[in-house]
């Protein structure tokens, strides 16, 4: 348990040190890239998140109203999810490219 407290203290120290220390140009660049990568994925996930939620909600409603058409609705739902999800995945690819490439 004392080990855990030590880790927590070190995390706080790490956060304080990095915020005030001067960085070299390369470090600054990779830090900017990491910030941009996080922003890219976070922003790219907003729209598809709303979209997929709406889509699945409507599909559930459709199945609840007409349970016999569940198979058909599910297929179309997966198709819609695939199209909507593509935007979030493009954000993820931008994340990978900024962070690692």
């Amino acid at each position: 348990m004392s080990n855990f407290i030590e880790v927590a203290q070190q995390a706080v120290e790490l956060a304080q040190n990095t915020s005030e220390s001067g960085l070299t140009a390369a470090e600054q660049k990779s830090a900017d890239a990491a910030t941009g990568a996080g922003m890219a994925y976070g922003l790219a996930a907003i729209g598809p998140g709303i979209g997929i939620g709406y889509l699945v909600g409507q599909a559930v409603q459709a199945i609840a109203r007409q349970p016999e058409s569940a198979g058909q609705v599910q297929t179309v739902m997966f198709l819609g999810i695939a199209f909507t999800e593509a935007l979030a995945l493009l954000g993820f690819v931008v994340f990978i490219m900024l962070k690692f490439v």
Partner: protein
Amino acid sequence: MILSQIHFPTIKNIVVWPNIFGDGWYGFNKIALIAFIAAVVPALIFFIAGRQSRLVPRGVQGFTEGIVSFVENQVAKPGIGTGYEPYLPVLISFFCFIAVGNLFEVIPFFQMPLNARMGAPLVLAIIAYLFFIMVGMKHNGPANYFKMVAFPQGVPKAMYILVTPIELISTFLVRPFSHAIRLFANMLAGHILLVSFGVLCIAVWTLQLVAVLEVLTFPGLIVFTAFEIGVSLIQAFVFSILAAVYIGGALHPAH
């Protein structure tokens, strides 16, 4: 400094594998081995099932007929519509190859999805792209097919200024990339997720924070492994149904 001992592996360490026979085209690595297994194993299973054709399917035959009827009823019929029969084999091939390749994400000692490298999904998407363009040109005639894609029916004449470039770009330029990236990014994200949880479990174990954090990370690893099995199969399904929808759009461009 205990915290700095946790090093998450860089992307090169989790998706790049060394070649056995050197760096040329003949180099053979883990990805190529997985691709080879993913191509050969379903082919062998279908071959064995095809040799014994019982009226009431049992064993291997029942399993393969289950796959075929799943692809037929859930992928080909909703995606292509009438006249789907000639395109069923290519859809089943897509489904089986991608599903087996993806499932190597959770198979011990491999634990690397085939489609987490851009090469495999890109080749599959280009095959699907050439396939649906050839189907459209064969079925409607080359000039007629491009006319049907560029000038969809039921659109006011003035709107063609907007609609034609959008349709041409989205059909012939963006489609193969979005088709490939959808599969690639899903599998890479799943692989990174599992690697992160694996690294976290080992780190927590070696830092002797077991009592506090292992209860979070180890069940998380198990749950996400189960989740990734589902994602693997769903992505195979999504890839083949999108291929079916593209083929259907080339066959009946009216809708």
